[in-house]
């Protein structure tokens, strides 16, 4: 009887300690909540880490986090992975970023290349406001945000004959990348605004159910591309350019030259060249995504 009681008590004690350990040491505090036309925006701070979360009730992950005491350091792997594009074009002069989020990526590029002109396209004015108010994002004469749909912006830039030498596609909607930003026609329009030496970096999910279709579509428009994945991240970066892809040797040389300047952002650039793969790991027989046949058509694959 006594033994049983002791055992019970022991169990309770272990349970209690385990529960305590699972509690975050510092409670997360929601410092801002906003409903925009496109999503619910939450800004949550845990200690010195401040994160932007979209659609918190659906359990979405953080879009952007900053450490308010060390603003330079990039926190997410995928944000850092975007810098791999520099291995192909180390000195961009005109940069286009589709999708602002908390604005950490444009801020880092502006810091790194103060003379480069950076255009950011963000469809949601509320996201722009939150980035400015809570994530230290500021526009300046070289870095401006256009509140517009990326497709509309790119199409118009193409007609006006504008060219960019570094393009990052990082626009995410409710569930995933909006379907009109995944199609062959869109990528053709992106191609139109790329300079000869431009590099395109597209952030996608490696777990996306459109993975095969996306890969086939990029391949159709750009030919071979670097498929960049890291074990620490669920993101897959598609990195490509109009010219044939550079040999690994030149990537390594560039990484060695650039790595020191990226240290303060926490970007492990030296690890990247070996991760840039051109191996086809998708089903090549899948259909190319077009404006007529967009991802909504694929939900049936589930």
């Amino acid at each position: 009887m006594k033994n049983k009681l002791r055992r019970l008590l022991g169990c309770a004690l272990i349970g209690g300690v385990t529960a305590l350990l699972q509690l975050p040491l510092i409670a997360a505090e929601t410092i801002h909540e906003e409903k925009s036309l496109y999503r619910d925006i939450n800004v949550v701070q845990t200690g010195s880490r401040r994160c932007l979360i979209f659609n918190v009730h659906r359990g979405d992950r953080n879009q952007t986090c900053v450490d308010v005491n060390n603003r330079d350091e990039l926190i997410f792997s995928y944000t850092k992975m975007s810098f791999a594009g520099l291995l192909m074009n180390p000195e961009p002069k005109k940069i286009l970023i589709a999708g602002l989020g908390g604005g950490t990526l444009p801020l880092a590029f502006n810091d790194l290349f103060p003379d480069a002109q950076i255009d950011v396209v963000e469809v949601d004015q509320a996201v722009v406001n939150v980035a400015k108010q809570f994530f230290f994002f500021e526009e300046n004469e070289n870095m401006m945000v256009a509140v517009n749909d990326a497709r509309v912006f790119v199409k118009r830039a193409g007609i006006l004959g504008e060219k960019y030498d570094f393009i990052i596609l990082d626009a995410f909607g409710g569930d995933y990348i909006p379907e009109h930003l995944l199609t062959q026609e869109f990528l053709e329009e992106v191609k139109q605004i790329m300079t000869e030496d431009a590099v395109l970096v597209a952030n996608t999910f490696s777990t996306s159910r459109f993975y095969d279709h996306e890969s086939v579509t990029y391949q159709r428009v750009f030919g071979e591309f670097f498929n960049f994945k890291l074990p620490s991240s669920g993101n897959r970066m598609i990195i490509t350019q109009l010219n044939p892809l550079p040999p690994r040797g030149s990537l390594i040389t560039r990484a060695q030259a650039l790595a020191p300047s990226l240290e303060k952002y926490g970007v492990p650039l030296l690890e990247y060249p070996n991760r840039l793969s051109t191996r086809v790991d998708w089903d090549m027989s899948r259909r190319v995504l077009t404006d007529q046949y967009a991802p909504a058509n694929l939900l049936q694959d589930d």
Partner: protein
Amino acid sequence: MVLLRLAIIRRLAKPVNSVSLPKIVVISVAFVSGFSIMTIEMLGARIMAPYFGGSISVWGSLITVFMLALSVGYLIGGRLSTRNPNPKTFALFFISAAIFSIPIIVFADAIMRPIFLAIEDPRYGSLFASIFLYFIPTSILGMISPYSVRLMVDSHEHSGHMAGQLFFVSTIGSAGGTLATSFYFVLWFDVNQILWGAVAVLLLAGSLILFINFLLQKNAAASKVPAYEK
């Protein structure tokens, strides 16, 4: 000679297309028109996204134009129903709506491109694109509802009842068209395939009306001739 005289007598006695369509036919095609309207509308946002983006204002433009077009259609359809309401005109609504929907498939880019170039604000761009793409076919589809009420009504006491039944069926059709298109058709088909489907269904509905009207007239003629010959 006799036949000709008979025909003239009949023409004088009653309007040519005096046969009335069975209620079930009117109700069925009203369902089809409600269904097609929403199928076309649901695809509108997807057709315009490449030019005007996927923002909520594109939906706003689209719905505004559909509402305006329908309201104009109701007005015209109601007016037309006062003058010799007949199945042939009714069938013509379906056939012309089908024909005027074809530009949405064939000329969408040719229509949207100049608008995109001329108007920088995607809100107004999508509004004008919606007008040029959708106003005419949608207003023709709008004419169907009041006209079908007239075809079903034979007395004043029944008019409210008939109108209620008709709006019930055509709105159920619209609900069905919305759901089927957004849940299933977009999974199974390309956008243009779905639109061709809507065109085909509207043409079929129009042909069905003409065919039934033809049969009824033939029957009416056949049953009347012996009466005159007595």
